[in-house]
């Protein structure tokens, strides 16, 4: 499926998600998570050149979708009396709320259009009256405000500000933009797979040095699963994931059809 829409057109992850749901004419209450997740990842892939901050917001949404997808794949726990909540519910609520605000903002837009036809007149207070400006009594304004109080306000501001500095991240130093392309990573993973055939997810991660690289590697793995070029197994939760490379050649992203 080729979907080429300008990504700038989306205001954020929710907006993109709504677009996909609208485009596929899917009931918001019954989102086929797998399908949508694939399309969503497709979009993010086109975003590689975007700045990290925006990218990360979209990635969080991708992670949420993948999380829901995985929860839905798990066998439903033998239902005790309580009904298990649909893992999609939270997302549905969020989407509906967002959709609602999009809807009212359209209505407000019309109201603004109408109101813009009403014109006002600047004040024309005669000069001699305007000059007679009321003196503002500063001591009255200050009232029972004391220096201690003012000092307290300032101190709490300073305190709040120093709390805002994330002591962990502030030690990371400068964030440097690296050139990591999903296309390259996609090929690297396959090269590794062709050589090793069976390996663990951890082996792959060990070669990655930055968080961004890990994310891109993960996206690459997801793609290869989708294409049926690898198979993954995991015995228990949190166990290392065993990856078996099934294909006998390496394909580029273009050949894979995106």
């Amino acid at each position, binding site marked *: 499926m080729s979907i080429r829409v300008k990504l700038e057109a989306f*205001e954020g992850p929710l907006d993109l998600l709504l677009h996909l749901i609208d485009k596929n004419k899917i*009931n918001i209450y019954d989102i086929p998570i797998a399908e949508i997740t694939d399309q969503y990842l497709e979009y993010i892939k086109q975003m590689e050149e975007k700045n990290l901050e925006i990218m990360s917001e979209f990635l969080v949404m991708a992670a949420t979708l993948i999380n829901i997808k995985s929860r839905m794949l798990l066998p439903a726990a033998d239902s005790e009396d309580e009904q298990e909540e649909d893992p999609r519910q939270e997302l549905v609520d969020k989407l509906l709320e967002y959709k609602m605000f999009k809807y*009212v903002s359209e209505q407000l837009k019309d109201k603004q259009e109408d109101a813009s036809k009403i014109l006002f007149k600047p004040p024309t207070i005669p000069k001699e009256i305007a000059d007679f400006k009321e003196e503002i009594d500063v001591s009255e304004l200050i009232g029972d405000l004391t220096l201690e109080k003012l000092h307290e306000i300032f101190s709490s501001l300073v305190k709040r500000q120093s709390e805002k500095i994330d002591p962990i991240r502030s030690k990371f130093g400068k964030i440097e933009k690296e050139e990591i392309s999903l296309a390259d990573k996609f090929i690297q993973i396959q090269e590794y797979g062709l050589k090793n055939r069976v390996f663990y997810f951890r082996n792959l991660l060990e070669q990655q040095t930055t968080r961004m690289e890990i994310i891109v590697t993960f996206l690459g793995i997801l793609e290869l699963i989708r294409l049926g070029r690898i198979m993954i197994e995991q015995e228990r939760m949190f166990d290392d994931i065993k990856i078996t490379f099934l294909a006998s050649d390496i394909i580029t992203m273009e050949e894979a059809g995106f």
Partner: protein
Amino acid sequence: MDLKLAEARIEAILFTMGEAVELERLAQAIDHDEETTRKIIRNMMDKYDDVSRGIQIIELDGSYQLCTKASMYESIIKITHIPKKHVLTDVLLETLSIIAYKQPITRLQIEEIRGVKSDHAINKLLEYNLICELGRLDAPGRPILFGTTEEFLRCFGLKSLDMLPAVNPEKLEDFKLQAEEEAEQLTLDI
């Protein structure tokens, strides 16, 4: 006679001041109590309704302001250029409607609904004087609370916040039905 004079005074005051004037101050200026003053203004509003009048009194959150009728717009722009105030992009409108309906609201709450950082939009709306700070939330970090201004009411032709377009539950039901109907044309499963 006295009431007529009161009307004249209110008209003159609103004309001179240009901006919205609180009922309380109008009442003091014409030496009547607020209830009477409100009645006088209501009566004036009815008179202004006449087709021979080109201006009107609007109410903004308990204040009153003189302005032209919207239907006069075409004639006015015939002889003068009216600069557009500020164009609100969809992002700004979206953020503004969240603030309008959910006020007082913190930046984080806005961002949770939009799913995206909103500093830029919030600062622009502050700059346009469509929103203002209402104080700080009594919670960890004491985040700033935002709400809409009188300028917001004016720009959107609203008397008060109660006049915001209602988001009724029926509409939500509509969205749901709509989505279901559409879905039937295309069934996808996992």
